[in-house]
């Protein structure tokens, strides 16, 4: 387990970024704070502080956790932005995610990042394909492929990215 200093240093450096992300996606201070802690505790538990890009890792992890929380919410958000986020959350939790998992991923036991996170980074956060690929540690073509599938899922919900 990392030392107390390491944990504190992690918060000093990334707390604001993670909380901001959770606030934006969840729109609820308490839930955002709770999710932020979940993110950090996951990282601390894993104990791997040698991640190449800790901020990218934390950012993606926070996004994934928030999407999971949104998916389990019953009430729909009100703003247009939130509706898109919510649609991505819904789509990433169902067929879109499982369809996106390739046989190779399955064979090698790798856990590809969810299509929802990729869609969030691309459609909502406005990152380019290359930037998304960098954040999630995938190839650009892999990101494109995921987005194509996600686009179909979103269109089925009435969104036309």
């Amino acid at each position: 387990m990392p030392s107390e200093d390491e944990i504190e240093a992690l918060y000093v450096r990334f707390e604001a970024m993670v909380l901001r992300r959770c606030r934006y996606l969840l729109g609820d201070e308490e839930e955002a704070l709770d999710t932020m802690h979940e993110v950090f505790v996951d990282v601390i538990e894993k104990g791997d502080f040698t991640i190449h890009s800790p901020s990218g890792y934390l950012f993606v992890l926070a996004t994934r956790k928030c999407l999971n929380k949104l998916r389990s919410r019953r009430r729909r958000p009100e703003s247009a932005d939130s509706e898109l986020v919510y649609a991505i959350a819904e789509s990433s939790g169902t067929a879109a995610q499982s369809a996106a998992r390739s046989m190779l991923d399955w064979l090698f036991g790798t856990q590809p990042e969810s299509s929802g996170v990729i869609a969030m980074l691309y459609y909502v956060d406005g990152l380019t394909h290359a930037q998304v690929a960098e954040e999630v540690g995938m190839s650009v073509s892999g990101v494109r492929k995921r987005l194509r599938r996600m686009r179909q899922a979103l269109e089925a919900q009435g969104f036309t990215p």
Partner: protein
Amino acid sequence: MSNWNDKDFIPERMLERLRLGELGDEETQRLLDELEARGEMHRLEALIEEDEEIRAHYPPAVMASHARERLRRRKREPADRPGKRRVSRRVLGMAALVMGLVFGAMAYLTLPPRSAQDAEIGAASPVDSSPSEPDESSSPMPDESSFPTEEPWRGMLEEFIARAGEGNSIPIYACAKGEVGTIKAADIRRVTTDASQIMTFENDEDELRMTCIGDGSGIANFHYEDEPRPRSITVRSAARYEDEIPRPPCSLDGPAEARVVLDRQGTPEQILVAGRISDSATQCLREHFEEAMWAPSGDRRPIWRVAIWSQSPD
């Protein structure tokens, strides 16, 4: 933040990376130039400002302490346990229901029919319709909303804890946010009327170390009882602050009292000295406590708050 693929837009994420210094020199300069050209430097400034606000409102030291607490709870309760327990309870419940139905049916079929008198007696039998007595062993945890949750790190142990002796058991509350505090007083309905927030620091697996303030007492070790409720802390040992922080070598110049507030961040700005003392003594205290916060071993001392002492004229 949303912008349906308007790639002409500088994403917030890139600003975050810029702020964190994760971009290379070239990319950093390019992005700064871009922001300048677009007249969007205010976005970066706002980000920096918000960072400071968040850190002030949710101090990293406090947040880290909460995270460790969560981690400890998580280790204590493996993720698969609740699920298994739920399933087994459900199965047991179903089994009990089925057994109840079977035995009920058997009894109905095998027992002789009750007489009319029996039936009357049965009808007249007193039925205890009074509400059950409150379960004294149930949690006395009061309504959590009644506790102050603003600025938890401002909460002090105050002299309440400092007066607690070894072996004393002190009831505490724990909020969903992970804050804990002592219950100082409760009314007859067990609603807390006075509470004080505290901050805990992990000492080892079972020990939590808390700071406290009082007439000379500085640090005490507590054992944190999570189960069964009521939660409480038992004072294992009370220590004087000299055990943790060397007594300052500063001269207070005659009758004086100094109050030093330490923050775990350990920066000079966060070491506040107040009291009837001279400027030179204030400076001396600041320097002393700054050093004390950062032990030569590199470990932070588990001190985060207040020490009070006074010096009488010789």
